[in-house]
C-alpha cells in the first residue's frame, strides 16, 4: 500500500474488541476481522466470459468459477459473485486493480471494492449453529463445502460467505456501512457457545 498521510479506520474499530464473550470457558466461535485485503469486482464484458476465463487461467493458473465457488487461495482468489461477475481478493501490497487491468485488458469491467466490504473470518466448532441464526442457507457439510460461496442475507443484512476449510472456517463479507450491525447480530448469536474475538489480521 502506498505510504500516505491518512490513517485508515475500520468500521468495526468501535464495536469489535479482542477478547472473550459469552459462555465462559467455551470457544464455539472465533471471530477475526480481516485487514489488508484487496478486493476488485470483475464483470465480464458482453460475450467475453470465455476469453476472460482463459486470461485468468493463463495469468494465474486459476479456473474462473462459473458456479458459486471460489478458486485460488489466501494470496489471490477469484470468488464468484453473480452472473459473469467475480470478486478478486488478494492479500498484501501491490495494486490488484492495476495488475488485473494489465492482464485482463478490456475483457472485464473492474471496480475496486476493497473498502466497500468488511470481511470477517469465522471459525470454531459452533460456527454453523451461530450462522444458522442469521443465514437461511444450508451450511451442512453435505450441502456446503470448502470453496463454496453464497450471496445471501444474514437477518436483514446482505452478505457474501465462503467456506475456507473443514474446521469449519468461513469468511463473510458485508457492505462496510452494515459491518457494525452484522457484529451486533453475530455476537449475541454466538454468546451461548462462547466467542473469542481475535485482533484484526
Amino acid at each position: 500500500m502506498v505510504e500516505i498521510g491518512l490513517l485508515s479506520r475500520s468500521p468495526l474499530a468501535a464495536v469489535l474488541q479482542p477478547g472473550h464473550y459469552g459462555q465462559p470457558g467455551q470457544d464455539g466461535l472465533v471471530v477475526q476481522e480481516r485487514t489488508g485485503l484487496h478486493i476488485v469486482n470483475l464483470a465480464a464484458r458482453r460475450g467475453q466470459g470465455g476469453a476472460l476465463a482463459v486470461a485468468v487461467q493463463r495469468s494465474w493458473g486459476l479456473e474462473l468459477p462459473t458456479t458459486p465457488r471460489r478458486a485460488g487461495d489466501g494470496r489471490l482468489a477469484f470468488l464468484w459473485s453473480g452472473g459473469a461477475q467475480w470478486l478478486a481478493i488478494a492479500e498484501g501490497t501491490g495494486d490488484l486493480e492495476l495488475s488485473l487491468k494489465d492482464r485482463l485488458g478490456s475483457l472485464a469491467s473492474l471496480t475496486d471494492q476493497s473498502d466497500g466490504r468488511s470481511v470477517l473470518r469465522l471459525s470454531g466448532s459452533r460456527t454453523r449453529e451461530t450462522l444458522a441464526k442469521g443465514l437461511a442457507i444450508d451450511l451442512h457439510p453435505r450441502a456446503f463445502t470448502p470453496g463454496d460461496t453464497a450471496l445471501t442475507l444474514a437477518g436483514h443484512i446482505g452478505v457474501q460467505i465462503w467456506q475456507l476449510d473443514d474446521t469449519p472456517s468461513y469468511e463473510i463479507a458485508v457492505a462496510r456501512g452494515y459491518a457494525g450491525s452484522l457484529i451486533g447480530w453475530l455476537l449475541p448469536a454466538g454468546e451461548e457457545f462462547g466467542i473469542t474475538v481475535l485482533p484484526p489480521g
Partner: protein
Amino acid sequence: MSTASETFPREIAAPAAAVSTRPAQPFRLAEAAGVDRKNLLDFTFDGQRYSGHSGDTLASALLASGVRLVGRSFKYHRPRGILSAGPEEPNAIVELRDGARREPNTRATVAELFQGLTATSQNRWPSLRFDVMGVNQFVAPILAAGFYYKTFMWPASFWEKVYEPLIRRAAGLGRASGSHDPDHYEKTTTHCDVLVIGAGPAGLMAALAAVRAGARVVLCEEDFLLGGRLLSERRMIGNRSALEWLREAEAELRAAPECRILRRTSVFGVFDGAYGAVERVGDHLPVPPMFQPRQRLWRIIAKRHVLCAGSLERPLVFGDNDRPGVMLAGAVRTYVNRFGVAPGRRAVVFANNDDAARTVADLAAAGVAVAALVDARAEVTPEISRIAEAAGAKLLAGARITETRGRLALRGAVVTDAAGTRHNFDCDLLAMSGGWSPTVHLTSHHGGKPVWSEAKAAFLPPSHLPPGMAVAGAATGDPLLADCLASGAQAGAEAARLAGFQTSLPAIPETDGESAELQPLWRVRGGKGKAFVDFQNDVAASDVALAQREGFRAVEHLKRYTTLGMATDQGKTSNVNGLALMAEFNERTIAQTGTTTFRPPYTPVSVGVLAGRHRGHEFRPTRLTPTHDWATEQGAVFVETGPWLRAQYFPRPGEADWLVTATREARAVREAVGLCDVSTLGKIDIQGPDAAVLLDRVYANNFASLPIGRVRYGVMLREDGFVMDDGTTARLAGDRFLMTTTTANAVSVSRHLDFCSQWLWPELDVQMISVTEQWAQIAVAGPRSRAVIEGVVDAGFDISNAAFPYMSCAELTICGGLKARLFRISFSGELAYELAVPARYGDALMRRLMEIGKPLGVTPYGIEALGVLRVEKGHPAGNELSGQTTAADIGLGRMMSKTKDFIGKAMAQRAGLTATDRPVLVGIRPWDRAARLRAGAHFLARNVENLAANDEGYVTSVAYSPALGHWIGLGLLQRGTERLGEVVRAYDPVRGGDLEVEIVSPVLVDPTGDRLRG
C-alpha cells in the same frame, strides 16, 4: 447432533417416596412414569402455596394438590376445571408469572412446573371462587349467540359510551403486562432431508427409519418428553413395556449424528417451502438461562415431512358437562400414568368407544374407585365387561349421563339407562370420551380440506397434502399402536427414499392387543343444563341450534356467528362436535357439512419469538457512514434516513435548539466553508461500451454527449412518466460513468438499472455495480472551499476555476498518493466540491480537512443545514420527488429530451401529466417576514373559503434562511410560474396556522449561479 435445548436431559423417573414439609399433594400416586419424585418444586396459584415435582405440568401439580377449580369461562363465567392434559385445553388457562413476564392465557396443561412458578386465574373478579360476573350464567337465556347484533342500538350514542365499554370489560381473558418484555428471542433456520413432527410411537418409528437410512432428520416434539401417548398408557411393545422401548428408541436417535431432536418445539405452520416451529427454550425455568433466549423460532426447510401429530380426544356433549372434575378420559390416564396423579377419588367413566375401558382399568390400578362405566353403545364387548367387573365398576350399556351435580367441583352424575331409569352416582371425577380426532391441522394449511370418514367417525387428512408431506400414526385415523408403529416406519422410510436415500423398512415390534371401536354420539338429548360444545367460548348445543334456526348454517357461518372454535384452543376439542350437531340440525351428513379452515398457528405462538431479535435498536440494521465515529466525537445529533444514521446537526454548547445550530452551520457554508459527509448518496459504477446508451435510455436528458471529465445533472422517470430520481452523473472515461442517486432511492435505482440492462435491453454491453460503500464522500462547500481542497490535493493537480470549472470531475491523488475522486458539484449553490476517498480513509480525511480548514473557519454541517442550503437554491429533493410529480412540475420539464426514447417518455405525454392546472414548483416567503413556515400547509387564495375546492397545492419544504434572514419554502402551486409576486395563504389548521405567503422564484439565493461558478 445435539442442540442447546438438550442440555437438560430428563430421564424417565423411577418413582420415589416424597419426604418434605411442603404442602401435601393428597392426590399424588405412588407411581409415575414421567415425574421425578425426588425433585420437589414450590409454586403458587392465586397466591396459595403448593408443591409439585419436576416433570409435572402446572395442571398435574394442581390436581395432585387437590385443586379443581382453575378458571372461569369467557361469557358466562362458569366455574371450570382441567379438561385435558395437552395443548387442546380450553378451560385451565391462567396468567403465568408476574410483572413484565406475565403471560396471559397460558394453558396449565402444557406449562411445565418450575421452582417458584406463580400462576393466577383470570377472567374473574374479585376471586375465582366468588366471581361477580358469574351472574351471567343466570341471564344466559339473553346472552345467546349473536344477541349483541340485535340490540344496543338505541340510543345510537350509547353504543360507544355505555354498551361497548361494558362488553369490552366483560370480554377478554388474561391481562397483558403492559411492560416491555424483558426476555429475548431468536430465530434460526435448519435444513434436513426428513422432518418428523411429533415423537409418539409413529414419529419415533419414522425418525428411526429415516435416520437409519442416513438421512438428516429433524424430530420436533411439542412436549418436553418424547413418547406421545406412550407416556400416558400402560402398553407393551415387543415383550417389554412401551416405556422401555421408548427409552431405547430415544437413545438410538440421540446417538445418531444426523438427527436433531427438538423437544418443547411445536411445529405451528406449514408455509410454502418452510415449516415454522417454536422451541420453548427457557419457559420451563424461572428465567431463561444465561445467553439463551426465552424461545427460538425454527424455520425448517426439509425435503420431506412426516406428520405424526397423533389425535385429540373429543368430549361428549351433555347437560352441565363443564363442571370442574369432568375430564377427557385419555387425559385421566395421562394424569394417572404419566404424572402419578389421581384426578379424583371416585370416578364415573362415560364413553362411546372401546378405548375408554382403559381408563377404567388404569384408574382401578391406581386405586381410584370407579363407580360406573357408562357406555353409550347398546352392546359392549366381553372384554369391556371384564374390565368393568375387575374394577368394581357398574357397567351401564346404552346409557347416557343426563345430569351432573356440584358447583365449584363435580359431586355427582345422573345416568339414564336405555330403559330410561335414572342412576345417581356420587363422584368427583367424570372421565368422558367421544372418540378421537386425528390431529390433521397441519395437513390443511395449504388449503386442502380434511375428508370425513363415516367409518372412523373422524376427519382424515385431505388427499391434497402440502407438497412433500406424508402422514402417519393416529393422525391418519388408524390409531392402534401396532398400526402407528407400522405406518410411522413406512412413512419414515419412504420419506428418506424420496429424499434420495436407500432404505429398508425397520422391523415392526409386536404390541399388546387393543380395539378402537366406536359408535358416534354427538349429543345427549333430553338432559338438563347447558350442554357445552366449545367450553372456552361458552358455545352450547342450543347455540348451534339457534344459529341453524337463524340461517347461519354453513360451518363458517356457524363459527362466526357463535364463535365456536375461535377460542385460544381453536376448537381442538369442539369443532367436530359442533359441526356434527349442525349437520344433524340441517339434516345433512357431516361430510356435506364440512369443516372450518385450519390456519396457523397450530398452537398459539408468542409475537416475541416471531420477531426474534428484531426489536428496539435491532429492529432493522443500522448503516453507518465512514465518518460516523468522528461525528459522534463531535457531539453530532443523528437522524434516521432509511437504514442510515446521518449527522443531522452538530450542536455547540449554548445553542438552544437545532434551529440555532443549523442556522449557524448553513451560514458558515455561505460565508466560509463547511464539511458534510455525503457518502450515503447512491453511487453506481457504470462501465462498458454501451454505458452511455443505457444512461440515455434511463435518464430523460442526454448523457451520450457528456464529455469525459464532466458531470451532468440528470433526472429519471418511471415508466408511468412521473419522476423517479435525480442526481449527478460523472463521465470518468469514454466507457465509464459514475452515477449518483438520492440516498432514499439508491437501492431501487440500482435494481431499475439492472432491470433495464437485463430485461429491457439485454443486448447492451454494460456492467454496473454499487460503489456507495467503497467511497467516503465529503462535500466541501463555501467560498473558501477551494483553499481547503488545495490543502489536500497532491502537487500537479490544478484546481483553479479555469482548469477545474463547475461540473468537472477528476481522478487524482491526495494527501501524498491516496487515490481519490474530486467532483465540482454543488447542492448548496456555493463554490463546492465533493471529495471521495476509499471509505477507510473517510474518517481521517474528515479530520484532515477540519484541520486544514480551521484557519478558514471550517464548520461541519449536518443534513438540516444541507436542507436549508438546497431550499435556498430551489433544488428539488425528497419532498418534491414524492412520486406524484412530473419533471415539469418541479421545473425540469425542459430536460426531457425530444430526440430520443427514454423510460417514461410516452406516458409522460398523457393528458393528466401535461395538464396546465398541475401544481408546479414555486418558492415562497412569509408576508410577515418574522413568521415561521411549515411544510404540509396547503395553498389557498386569500379571500376564499377553506374548502377543498379551493385547494391549490401545498408547501413541500421549508427552511430558515440565514442568507435572507427569514423563513422560506418550496411548494407546488397550481399555475405557480404565472403567479410570482402573488400572495396566497399557507393554510395549516392541524398546527393552527394560516399564513400569508408570497410566491417567488424557487431559487432565492444567487439565482444567476455566480457563486457556484466562482
